[in-house]
């Protein structure tokens, strides 16, 4: 099991602490985050929180961390916002080109390998933990995990980001093979809500998407619509 547990990467501070500007103006933007992806028979369900932080300031509270790479392939980003956006742009270009050459929709495994190639080659400079998920005709719904360091592994269910540590137990006990799409959506929404309750770097709304042969369905769960668990 190797999904990334995120440590926000703080850039170097150029000058000593100034009282005129708050600390967070000189810190790198990070998607300290919780992301999750689950396979079901016929597709995948992916989900993410929506908080992007620079230090203690929430730079974007409605971030979309579910990034389309191709028609039926998405990636969930965690780690440095800049790094993951740059990598996703590169892979989108490479995959689009490859797909035109092939004259066929690309495989999810191909997309995952492109991510891995970039993440591994530039592993010293990058801080990026990515989940690649999608549907293709050869193998159906697939989830691939590319954590920090550039490993690649396929898993039926995977979580990532700083908030993921808190939900390993919940995920292990609640995931079963052969779940339906709706069960996967419920599991993802619950798991993300639990993580957002405990992780300071995760929060906001829950963004969900389900990808299958028929296409992509996206939805957003706002604060009052999130599953609630607090009894203590």
């Amino acid at each position, binding site marked *: 099991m190797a999904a990334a547990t995120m440590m926000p990467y703080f850039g170097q501070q150029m000058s000593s602490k100034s009282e005129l500007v708050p600390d967070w103006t000189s810190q790198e933007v990070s998607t300290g985050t919780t992301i999750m992806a689950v396979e079901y028979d016929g597709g995948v369900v992916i989900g993410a929180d929506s908080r992007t932080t620079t230090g203690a300031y929430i730079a974007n509270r409605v971030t979309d961390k579910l990034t389309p790479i191709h028609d039926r392939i998405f990636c969930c980003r965690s780690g440095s916002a800049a790094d993951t956006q740059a990598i996703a742009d590169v892979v989108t270009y490479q995959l689009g080109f490859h797909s035109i050459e092939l004259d066929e929709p690309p495989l999810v495994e191909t997309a995952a390998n492109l991510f891995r190639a970039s993440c591994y080659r530039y592993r010293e400079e990058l801080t990026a933990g990515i989940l690649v998920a999608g549907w293709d005709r050869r193998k159906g719904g697939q989830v691939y995990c590319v954590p920090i360091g550039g490993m690649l592994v396929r898993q039926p269910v995977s979580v990532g980001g700083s908030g993921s540590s808190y939900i390993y137990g*919940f995920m292990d006990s*609640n*995931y079963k*093979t052969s779940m339906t799409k709706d069960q996967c959506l419920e599991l993802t929404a619950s798991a993300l809500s*639990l993580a957002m309750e405990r992780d300071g770097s995760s929060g906001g709304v829950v963004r969900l998407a389900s990808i299958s042969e028929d296409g992509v369905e996206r939805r957003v769960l706002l604060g009052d619509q999130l599953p609630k668990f607090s009894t*203590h």
Partner: protein
Amino acid sequence: MEKRSADSQVKGVSTGTTILAATFNGGVVIGSDSRASIGGEYVSSKTINKVIQVHDQIFCCMAGSLADAQAVTKAAKYRLSFHSVQMETPPLVIAAASVLQELCYKNKEELQAGFITAGWDRKKGPQVYVVSLGGMLIGQPVTIGGSGSTYIYGYVDAKYKPNMSREECLQFATNALALAMGRDNVSGGVAHLVVITETGVEHVVVPGNKLPKFHNE
């Protein structure tokens, strides 16, 4: 709940660990794993008992540096029994927790140990208290601690309900420990559980091969 992030910096034998305690209808369950490791690389004991009895119906679980935790519980046991003789009555659970808190707070520079105290007394019934690394004391219906606890926050938040039955609570605690041991490499071995009620104390030990298994095992 304090996250036990200092474990990796603990020198010597550490209880990189998972401990928990939960109240149910009429009692409390307190439990832990049984692994003691040095720096997360060598398991120095596979069957250590981290649930220590400090009085007839009060137990505590230790996390952090094993040496510190054993020294503190020894001192606490002595102070508590003296207190109990002076008062001519069994001590309150909060008294036990306060004794641990005082030791942890006054010696916070030298010590690296945290505790969960659970028990039953006549005044307030079943209670759980957590004394964190720096000496904070908080009472909660359910609490988890140790390095393995990070992985089960979600599970505990979702699954714990107040006023469960004894069997439900025991199953909940066993599952939580099993899940944490499955993800944390410095927690493992057997699950030690103690059930404390008005009528007495019961020890339950679940060996590794009898722990509940989940989908990926």
